[in-house]
């Protein structure tokens, strides 16, 4: 079973089905990339370049806007996307950000 699940064909992120180590392979129609950090279960990784200001798409639906350029293979989370509705409050040390 692949370590990543793509939920909808329009998505630009894939979801980790288990803890995936840095350097693991993630494949999409844009190419094959390496994860840039450890990725915890159910966290997201970009499977193509996402430019600052682009929508992040999961379930085929927008889940927020990229707040910086995101490289393929990078962890996509609270540090690089923002809600289009209300701000996300989180505790940085517990947000599962292994790459910051």
């Amino acid at each position, binding site marked *: 079973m692949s370590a990543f699940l793509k*939920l909808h064909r329009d998505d630009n992120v894939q979801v980790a089905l288990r803890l995936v180590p840095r350097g693991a392979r993630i494949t999409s129609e844009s190419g094959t990339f390496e994860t840039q950090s450890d990725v915890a279960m*159910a966290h997201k990784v970009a499977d193509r370049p996402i430019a600052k200001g682009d929508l992040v798409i999961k379930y085929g639906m927008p889940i*927020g806007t990229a707040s910086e350029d995101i490289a393929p293979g990078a962890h996509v989370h609270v540090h690089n996307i923002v809600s289009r509705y209300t701000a996300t409050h989180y505790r940085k040390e517990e947000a599962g950000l292994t790459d910051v």
Partner: protein
Amino acid sequence: MSEVWQGFLRSDGRKGIRNTVAVAYLVECAHFVADEIVRNFRDAEVHLIGFPGCFPNDYAQKMMERLGTHPNVGAVLLVSLGCESFNRSKLASVIAASGRPVETLVIQKTGGSAATIDKGTALVRDMLDRIADVPRVDMGVSDLVVGTVCGGSDGTSGLSGNPAAGRTFDRLVAEGAACIFEETGELIGCEHIMAERAVTPELGAELKACVDKAARYYSVLGYGSFAAGNATGGLSTIEEKSLGAYVKSGDAPISGIIKPGDVPPKGGLYLMDVVPDGEVRFGFPNISDNAEIVEMIASGAHMTLFITGRGSVVGSAISPVIKICANPDTYRALAGDMDINAGAIIEGKQSLDDVAGEIYTRICATAAGTATASEALGHQEFILTYKSFDPIGPACLPTV
């Protein structure tokens, strides 16, 4: 072939799956005394409910009236300090009118804590005897009201537990049950796709309006319905959490919108609008998961499906909670608190349909009397706080 079990027939005609004595404090000042009474019945179905505030509130009054006449409740003991504003005589008369035994103890007139605990314990013992021979009646899925909430969500919730619960909801609705999903603050971002499922265009407009109301309300408060642990579990924004939460409503058409305490008029799928009407007051709409569960129960839910990723351990007073764990790591860590392991879907060991079938089977077993994990552990969480609502609009309910 649908399952049939023996329910408890109330004199108002409603059918319950539990036969509980509710002990209700009517202000925080009476909470300890009521709790001491309940503690004398550790092995019986005696549950503590109550309202802590001293100021009057129409919502709290309605909620307590609905809870005191819930089909799972056979009798009620009210415990009042004496000087609080809660309208105890109206509550007692509503419960009495439903045919249930009800007694009121006023601590200031009963001789204080010790005397009230003694008297209350004797009254509850008497009530347990009186409801022991309540008539039994055939009951099936079409008699059920089932709620669903998610709490402690993470990135697995929207992949396994919530979609499996959604498939179970589809089957329950097809078999005539009334199913309720809720937390409009966690449907932000889904309002347009949800509105397309409404049975009428007018209802679709109401669905959008109540999510807009939630977005406004939470933006005034400065926080979305999003806890720190959601981010730990891989959720990044409220709209991502919402999309995962929304799928627990399944695929059935949406029949109506209810507000807390409104009982669905017939089978079908209902959205509960939990965000207060009018200007923002009294703080956050539901301060924790059990506040949502209590509102489901006040709307007649015989039981609630609770889908968790991070791992909740709660149950509830009055109606059983079936806990569905979306995350396989969490399931292993908290297996004794869980009823269903939907994490097996994440690991590729079971399909969504397998787990949806397991949830359905567990619902029928719970209705027939089997204890859920939280019931067996003795969980009886309950919380009720201040809110204010306008009545639901004319387009919100289906014609019966």
